[in-house]
């Protein structure tokens, strides 16, 4: 980022912001989001439900962009990893009575393991092969979820216990909010670390990265596995929020939903997809609702919107944001959008030449 202010003495607020990798603007935005369910008109249940869906999408977008945006590998089987986590947790809860709270974390294991194996097999190669392979693996798992009825109930639907015995959406909102924050902060901190620099280097030019002593395969595998692990964790939430799992949760269409949000939000920013998710879900639901007398019209608009944005604004919201803040002159606003960065981090960025 261009106008980073270098401050050595932090106050508490700035330290916190630095720890959670947020700009002041981002912080205020999230704070607003956190109290939004109490502000009319957003205090209605259905809007909170939309926000839950949006945040779930946002968290997925962050995990997806971590791979897609940074090491330039589009995980075309992303939904399968979400589904793996969801089914693991759902099956453990439904068949063995394991607490969903615990199952959600157990769901991370198979997702990470399969992600790791996929990575080991494909990530020494160019990105498109990993994408293709991940797609086939997702198809295979989707097929297995459909066919292994004794385990997954297949298309009959697996009834999973919900996380809470309440029908209110508010607690779920805060659960997914927390999960989103954890996903974002962990992945953001990694992106900011040495490893993140390696990711960026690999994403921009693999050969150059290799010659400068980075082992691209290793870093790509780490990245891919991490992203899949988070996908699995988030899958657990899906299972225990809706209470029913169908194999279609692993379907390519679900991956595409996330991919579209990431692209509309802007690639390689982590926050872009997350930022776009909630407005996107709201807009889609609004259009559907307004035109509910003409089912399908909303999807026509969706298709058109996608085409137009890819032709005329392929960088998405992040590109828009960048072009806006480049014009900012007012120091207060500058500080708001850029925040402060710790001196060591600043040094690292300068050293890498990747500012």
């Amino acid at each position, binding site marked *: 980022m261009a106008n980073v202010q270098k401050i050595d003495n932090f106050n508490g607020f700035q330290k916190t912001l630095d720890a959670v990798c947020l700009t002041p603007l981002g912080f205020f935005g999230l704070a607003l989001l956190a109290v939004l369910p109490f502000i*009319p*008109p*957003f205090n*209605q*249940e*259905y*809007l909170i*439900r*939309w926000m839950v*869906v949006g945040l779930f999408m946002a968290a997925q977008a962050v995990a997806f962009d971590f791979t897609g945006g940074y090491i330039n590998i589009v995980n075309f089987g992303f939904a399968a990893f979400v589904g793996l986590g969801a089914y693991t947790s759902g099956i453990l809860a439904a068949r063995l009575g394991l607490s969903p709270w615990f199952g959600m974390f157990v769901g991370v294991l198979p997702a990470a393991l399969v992600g790791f194996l996929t990575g080991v097999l494909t990530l020494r190669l160019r990105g498109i092969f990993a994408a293709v392979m991940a797609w086939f693996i997702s198809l295979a798992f989707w097929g297995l979820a*459909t066919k292994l*009825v004794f385990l997954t*109930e*297949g*298309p*009959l*639907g697996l*009834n999973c216990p*919900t996380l809470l015995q309440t*029908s*209110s959406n508010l607690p779920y909102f805060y659960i997914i909010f927390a999960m989103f924050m954890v996903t974002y902060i962990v992945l953001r901190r990694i992106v900011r670390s040495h490893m993140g620099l390696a990711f960026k280097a690999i994403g921009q030019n693999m050969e150059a990265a290799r010659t400068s002593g980075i082992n691209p395969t290793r870093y790509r595998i780490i990245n891919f596995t991490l992203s899949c692990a988070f996908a699995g964790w988030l899958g657990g939430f*899906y299972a225990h929020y*809706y*209470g*029913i799992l*169908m194999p*279609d949760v692993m379907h390519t269409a679900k991956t595409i939903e996330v991919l579209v949000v990431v692209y509309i939000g802007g690639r390689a920013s982590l926050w872009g997809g997350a930022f776009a998710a909630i407005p996107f879900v*709201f*807009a889609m*639901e*609004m259009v*559907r*609702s*307004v035109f*509910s*007398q003409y*089912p*399908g019209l909303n*999807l026509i608009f969706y298709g058109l919107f996608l085409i137009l944005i890819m032709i005329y604004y392929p960088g998405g919201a992040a590109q*828009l944001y960048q*072009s*806006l803040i480049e014009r900012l002159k007012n120091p207060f606003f500058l500080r708001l959008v850029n925040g402060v960065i710790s001196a060591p981090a600043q040094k690292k960025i300068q050293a890498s030449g990747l500012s």
Partner: protein
Amino acid sequence: MSKRGRCLMLVLAAVFMGSMMIGHAAAADKVFKLGILGPFTGPAAKSGNEMKDAATMAIDEIGNKIGDYKIELVYIDDQSDPSKGTNAYAEAIERKGVQAGILNWNTAVTVAIQPMLAKYKVPHFFCLGAGKAGIDKWESLPPEERYLIMKGWPIPQKLVVGYVELLNDAEKKKLWKPDKKLAALWGEDTDWGRSLVGGMAKGLKENGWEIFTEEYFDLKKTDFYPYINKCKQAGVTLLAGSSSGVASVSAIIKQQHEVGFKGLVVADGLGWVGDWYKMTGQASDGVLDMQPQLTTPAQKDWVEKFKNRFNYDPSPSAAGMAFDYANFFVKIAKRAIEKYGELNSETITKIGREEVAEGKLTYSRADGALMHARYGTDAASRPDPKISPADFFFPVIQYQKGNGFNVFPEDVKQAELMVR
């Protein structure tokens, strides 16, 4: 960004916020909003749209009025996806003020909406999602949270006994003596196909049939040559299954004909779509099905009206039953006004629990039911509809030249079973 762009953004944001606020004030008095739930887009859109059109037609026919309530229909598109369906339904209830809902197609949606219904205390009737998971969910809820009052379609296991009985009967009467009792079963890989064909397999096994293979396929699949060839090679004499996808079911019928399969073919669900004969042609001769037929003058009248309005042949099951169920709902609503003087979620729930669920309020031929003798449930079968020849009942029919003839049971028989 240009100035114009910025203005545009502001306007969009304002419109967005505004539209969020407006929803509140939408419910004026003496208007009753009825939700029509179904998959109007996506793979099951055909069935969803038939239900939607039929329900719209039914409500139009009563002038969109029940008592002095104006009925407004709100279409809720679940896209065959439980999460999207629940989101859309919740929004329809809160923002648009839907006070009761009818119909639906997928069992997963039937499952997913139930807790949500309980939360808003909105009653829902006549889910056509037949799978058992819907009932499991219903049973897992405490009685006061069961807002799914009645399903529209019983779990398929209860229905398929008809085929097995027919086969036993045919054997007894020496109408058909298969070389060996070897059956191949097929079904769409959904809750519907799996429960129905699973029930079939159980019934056949209990009656001395050997199951050569029991296979489930994707709803869109249309290439069954290897499967049929395999069955033919093994000497299968009964090819039975079910699919609601007309593409796949007509493909299987045509392909068994082309490949020269010899034996009896059951294609449950062929009648789901009105114009199937245009796609199967004479290959469907001799195929067995269990779907109500549109043969009485009243039914034919209705088909005519439907075709005039929507330009396609309605199916007895999706459109026909949706039409009946919409009328059944009207009856329930009238009863609610009569008994409580008001039409809202609460009174309808009361009527639903006190009268519909107990079998006191039913919808029968006398009320104008088209497809079945009587729709209703009772303590023994709820939330499923009650099945008996005097209630909700499917005779086994055999197709000849595009028409179905009842071949079982005895009392409704129109023709004798024929085997190629």
